[in-house]
C-alpha cells in the first residue's frame, strides 16, 4: 500500500484481465481485495457466515460484470466496495424481512474501523472521516446507519424517535453538508 497510484493501476489491470475471463487474474484480484471486501460485508452483515455468503455473491458479480467496469467511471476499489456493500445490504434486508423483527440491533455490532486500525486509510478516506465528524452527531449516525447498516427512513425515524419526514429532512441536510465539506 506504499503507492496508492500503483495499487490502483494494479487492481485496474486485474479487473481488465478478469473481463477477459482470465481466471488467474480473478484469483489475484480476489487475493488483493478480499480483506477489504470481507470487512465491508462483515460490517454490514454483522455475522461471519452471512458476510462470507455476501462476499461470494459480490465476487460472482465482479466476475460477470468486469467488462463494464471501465464505463462506470469509478476507481477500482470504489467499484468493488460499492458492489460488496450493495450485495451485503440486499442480503441483510432479505434476512430482516425473513426474520421479521428478529434481533436486528443485536447482530449489528460488527467490528468497525477505529482511527487506530485505519492507519493506512487514503487521504480521501481521511477527508470523508473529517467531514463526517464535522456533521452533527445524529446526522452522521443517520448517514452511516443507511450506508453501513442498510437502515431505511422508517428504521431511522424509529431509532431517532422523530417523524419520517423530519428524518428525511435531517438526512438530506446532512448529505448537503457532507457534499459541501468534501468539495472544499
Amino acid at each position, binding site marked *: 500500500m506504499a503507492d496508492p497510484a500503483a495499487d490502483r493501476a494494479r487492481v485496474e489491470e486485474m479487473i481488465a484481465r478478469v*473481463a477477459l475471463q482470465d481466471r488467474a487474474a*480473478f484469483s489475484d484480484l480476489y487475493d488483493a481485495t478480499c480483506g477489504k471486501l470481507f470487512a465491508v460485508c462483515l460490517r454490514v452483515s454483522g455475522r461471519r457466515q452471512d458476510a*462470507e455468503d455476501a462476499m461470494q455473491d459480490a465476487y460472482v458479480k465482479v466476475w460477470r460484470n468486469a467488462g463494464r467496469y471501465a464505463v462506470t467511471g469509478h476507481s477500482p*476499489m470504489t467499484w468493488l466496495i460499492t458492489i460488496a456493500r450493495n450485495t451485503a445490504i440486499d442480503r441483510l434486508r432479505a434476512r430482516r424481512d425473513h426474520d421479521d423483527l428478529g434481533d436486528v440491533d443485536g447482530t449489528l455490532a460488527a467490528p*468497525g474501523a477505529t482511527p487506530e486500525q485505519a492507519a493506512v486509510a487514503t487521504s480521501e478516506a481521511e477527508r470523508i472521516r473529517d467531514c463526517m465528524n464535522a456533521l452533527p452527531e445524529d446526522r452522521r449516525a443517520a448517514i452511516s446507519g443507511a450506508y453501513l447498516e442498510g437502515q431505511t427512513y422508517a428504521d431511522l425515524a424509529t431509532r431517532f424517535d422523530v417523524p419520517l419526514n423530519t428524518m428525511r429532512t435531517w438526512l438530506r441536510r446532512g448529505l448537503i453538508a457532507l457534499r459541501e465539506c468534501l468539495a472544499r
Partner: protein
Amino acid sequence: MMDELAEDDDLTAAELALGLLEGDALSEARARVGREPAFARALVAWEARLSHMAQDLAAEDPPAAAKAALMARLFPEPAPVPLWRRAWPWQLASVAAIAVASLLFFTTGPTPQEGPLYTAEIAAEAGDFRVVALVDKSRDEVILTRTLGAAPEGRILQVWAHGPGEPAQSVGLWPAGESVRLPLPTEIAAVEGVLTLGVSEEPPGGSTTGSPSGRVFGTVEIPGVTAAR
C-alpha cells in the same frame, strides 16, 4: 457536474446510492440512471463519496474456505455442452453469420469441433455488439467479422486471447472495417484445450497497459482446440 442537476435531483441520487428509496421512487430513480447521463454521474459521485466510509474499515481476512467455495461455484468441472445449446446463438445471428455457420457445420461436422477450423460468437450481454470468430489452426490465424455494433467514435477494437489458466494477451488491433484477419501470437497458437477470445474497445493504437483499458464487449470459450496436424 453538480450544477447540471438540480439540488433535489442530486439528493435523490444520494438516496439511491444509500438504498433509501422505495417503491415507485426507487423504480423511477433506477430508470433515470439509464436515461439521464447527469443523473448517472451524480449517482457515481455519491457512490464514490460514500464508499470512503467503507474504505476506512480495517481489512479482515476471510477464511481460506471462502475462496475455494467461490472458485468451485464459478468454475465447476466442465460438463459436455449439448449440441443444441452450442448451436442456438447461430439462430440469432445475422444471415451472413448463419451462412458461415452452415458452411462450417458441413466442413467441420457437429460438436465437438475438430480442427483445423473452430467457430465461435462473441456477443455483448447488453445486446449491442456481436462478432463471429473463425480460428484457423492450419494457418494459426483468427478471422473476425462484426455482425452487430462497432467501436465508439474515435476508438478502435482490440482482440484478446488466452489459454486455460494462462494470462490474457493481445492478439492484435482491429482499427476499422467489417472484418479482420490476425495471426495468432506464438503463445496463443500453442494453446491446447479451451481457447478464450475477447474483444474490447480501445484508443487508436490500442491499449497501452497490456490489458484492456476500455469496455470489454464479451468473451467466448472455444473448447477442444488442438494444434494443427
